[in-house]
C-alpha cells in the first residue's frame, strides 16, 4: 500500500486534485473509535438531561413540588379547620369575620395579651369566620386531586379504546373512530353542564350511606362527565401513535420471528408510544383542573363545605368590592398550577418526543 502511494505522480500545485500522500491509513484503534458515534445513554436519561436544561420546565417542576409539600404539610401545622368556625381557647370566635390577612380578632388579641399563642391568619378569614389560608390549601388539594384522577381516568379509557382500535384496524377501527368523531363533535361545555345536572340527581340515591357519599354527588358526576367526554382526544392520540409504530419494519421483523401480539404490544408498541402518552396526560391535568374550576364557579362542582379553588372564587364574588384578595388568592393558585403543568408538559414533550430531537 505504501509503495503505491509513493509511486503516485507528484501533485501539481495548481491542481485541485487531492494529494494522496497527505492521507494516512487509519489504525485499527482509530477505526474502532469511528464505530460508535454518540455516547451511550438510555432514552430516559437522555430525555431527563434535556429536560433539566429547560429553565421553565425545571421552575414549574419545583413550583409543583412546593405546592404538593404545602398542601401535605399545612393542614398539620395550621391549627384551623376548613369547615369549622375559628375557636380561641375553646370559645367560638364570632368576631373573626372577613378579616384581612394577618389581622387578629378582638378575642384573639385578648388571648394573646394574656400570653396565649395564636397562629396568624395568613390570608385572613371568610364571612363564616373560617381561616382562609387553610381553605385555599384544601381547595388546592381538591382541585389537584380532581385533575390527577380525571387525567388518569382519561388515560385509562383512551389508552384501552385507542389501542384496540389502532392495533386491530379494519372494520373495528372504522366503527370505533366514528363513535369518537360523534363524541368529539358534541359541544363539551354544554354537555358537561347538562350531564352534571342530570347525573347529580340520579347518583344521590345510589350512593347514599356509602363512603362515596362523602366525596359528594357533584364531584362524582364531575368525574363521570369528564371520563365520558374527554377520553376521545387521548383515544385518537393513542390510535395514531399505534398506527405509526405498527407500520415500522421492526414490528414486521418481530412477526417474522414468530412473536405473538402480546409480545409485540409489550416490547415494541408500548415502549415507543409511552412517552408521548404520558406527556399528553400531564397536559390533561390543567385542563381537568380548569373544567372543575369553572363548574365549581357555576355552582356545579364540589359540594359545601368542601372547598375547591373554583368554588372559593365563586364565593369570593359576593364581597368582591370589599375583599378582592379573596378572589385573588384562589385565582392566582389556579393560574400558577395550570401554567406550570402546561410548561412542564411542553418541556417534557420537547425533551422526550424523538421527532423534535435536535
Amino acid at each position: 500500500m505504501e509503495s503505491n502511494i509513493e509511486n503516485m505522480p507528484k501533485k501539481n500545485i495548481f491542481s485541485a486534485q487531492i494529494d494522496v500522500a497527505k492521507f494516512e491509513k487509519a489504525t485499527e484503534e482509530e477505526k474502532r473509535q469511528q464505530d460508535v458515534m454518540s455516547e451511550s445513554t438510555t432514552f430516559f436519561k437522555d430525555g431527563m438531561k434535556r429536560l433539566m436544561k429547560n429553565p421553565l420546565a425545571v421552575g414549574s417542576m419545583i413550583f409543583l413540588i412546593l405546592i404538593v409539600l404545602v398542601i401535605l404539610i399545612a393542614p398539620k401545622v395550621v391549627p384551623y379547620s376548613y369547615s369549622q368556625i375559628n375557636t380561641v381557647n375553646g370559645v367560638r370566635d364570632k368576631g373573626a369575620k372577613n378579616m384581612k390577612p394577618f389581622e387578629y380578632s378582638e378575642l384573639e388579641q385578648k388571648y394573646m395579651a394574656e400570653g396565649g399563642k395564636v397562629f396568624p391568619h395568613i390570608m385572613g378569614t371568610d364571612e363564616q369566620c373560617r381561616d382562609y389560608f387553610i381553605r385555599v390549601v384544601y381547595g388546592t388539594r381538591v382541585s389537584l386531586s380532581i385533575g390527577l384522577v380525571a387525567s388518569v381516568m382519561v388515560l385509562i379509557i383512551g389508552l384501552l379504546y385507542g389501542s384496540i382500535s389502532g392495533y386491530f384496524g379494519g372494520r373495528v377501527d372504522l366503527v370505533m373512530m366514528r363513535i369518537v368523531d360523534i363524541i368529539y363533535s358534541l359541544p363539551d361545555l354544554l354537555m358537561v353542564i347538562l350531564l352534571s345536572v342530570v347525573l347529580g340527581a340520579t347518583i344521590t340515591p345510589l350512593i347514599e350511606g356509602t363512603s362515596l357519599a362523602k366525596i359528594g354527588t357533584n364531584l362524582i358526576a364531575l368525574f363521570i362527565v369528564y371520563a365520558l367526554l374527554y377520553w376521545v382526544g387521548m383515544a385518537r392520540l393513542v390510535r395514531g401513535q399505534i398506527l405509526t409504530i405498527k407500520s415500522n419494519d421492526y414490528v414486521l421483523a418481530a412477526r417474522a420471528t414468530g412473536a405473538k401480539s402480546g409480545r409485540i404490544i409489550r416490547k415494541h408498541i408500548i415502549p415507543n408510544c409511552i412517552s408521548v402518552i404520558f406527556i399528553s396526560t400531564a397536559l390533561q391535568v390543567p385542563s381537568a383542573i380548569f373544567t372543575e374550576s369553572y363548574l365549581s364557579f357555576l355552582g356545579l362542582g364540589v359540594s359545601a363545605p368542601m372547598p375547591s379553588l373554583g368554588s372559593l372564587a365563586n364565593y369570593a364574588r359576593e364581597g368582591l368590592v370589599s375583599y378582592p384578595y379573596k378572589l385573588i388568592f384562589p385565582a392566582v393558585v389556579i393560574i400558577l398550577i395550570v401554567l406550570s403543568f402546561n410548561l412542564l408538559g411542553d418541556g417534557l414533550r420537547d425533551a422526550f418526543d424523538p421527532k423534535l430531537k435536535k
Partner: protein
Amino acid sequence: MNNEYLIEVENLKQYFPIKTGFFKTTPLKAVDGVSFKIKPGETLGLVGESGCGKTTVGRSILRLYEPTDGVVKYNGEIITASNMQEYRKHMQMVFQDPYSSLNPRMTVEDIIGEPLDVHKLYENKAQRREKILSLMELVGLNAEHATRYAHEFSGGQRQRIGIARALAVDPKFIVCDEAVSALDVSIQAQVINMFEDLQQKLGVAYLFIAHDLLVVRHISNRIAVMYLGRIVEVGDADDVYEHPQHPYTESLLSAVPIPDPIQAKENKRIVLSGDVPSPMNMPTGCAFRTRCRYATERCATECPSLLDRGNGHEVACFNR
C-alpha cells in the same frame, strides 16, 4: 425429508383489496402467479422495477401476508397458516431500511435476542448472552456494544444487527429484501461479501431481492426477473446477464452502467417508452406489451407462460 429443493413456490398470488368507492373494492394484483424453486445453500436473485411486487413475494413466502392463492413448500412440506410458527425458525428476513427495522427503544442485545426469547432457545441468561455475542462476532460487530441502542450505529452496522437477528434462530433460508439498497456503495460491497461468507459458513439459501442487476449477478446462482407481479425470465445468473432473452430484461440490462467507455458506446441503450401500468388495471395478455418493441396482436390476447429455452433458462415471451 431431504428434498432437492429447500423452497418451492407454486403459483403464488397476492391480491390486496383496495377501496375504490364507498362499497367497492378492486383487487390490486401485487403478485400474480409466481413460481420458483431454491436449492439448499443457493441464492436466487429477484430483480425488477420498484413496485413490481418483489417485497410482496418475500413477505408472502414468510406469511407476513396471507397469500391469496398458491403454495409455498419448505423441504417438500406445504406451509400453512397454522404450522407456520414452526417454520419461522427456518425462514427469516432481512429488511431494506436499516433505520425502521430496528426498535429504537431496545438495545442491540435485546434486538438480536428477540428470536431467542420467542422460541426459548436458551436455558439461562448466560447462555443467551453467549449466543448473542457470538452472533455479533459472526456479523462483524464489536461485542462491547451489545448494550447500546441502535441509533448509535451507522447504516451498515445497523444492517449487520438486522442480519444477526435473522441468523439468531439458525435459519436455512433468508429473504434479503433490498438488504443493501439503502447503504453507501462502499458499504454495500462489504455487506454483500458478508452475505457470501455467511452462506459458505452456514449453508443458508437466500432469496436476494434487489433492483440493481449488478448486485444480484455478483451474489446469485440464478436470477429471476419480475415485471408487474409475474416472473418474465429466470435462469442461471451468467446466462440471464449475458444472453437476456425477454425484451424487458434486455432493457433492464441496457440501463446498467458499463464501466468501459468504448464498450458502453457500442451498447445501445434501450429506453422503455411509457410508464409502468397500474397493478390495479393490468393490460390484457402480456403485461409488458404496452412498452414492448416486439409486441404483436397475439400479445394482447394471450398471456405468455414461462417456457424453457434450454439449460433451465425460462422466458415468458412469444416473440423471442
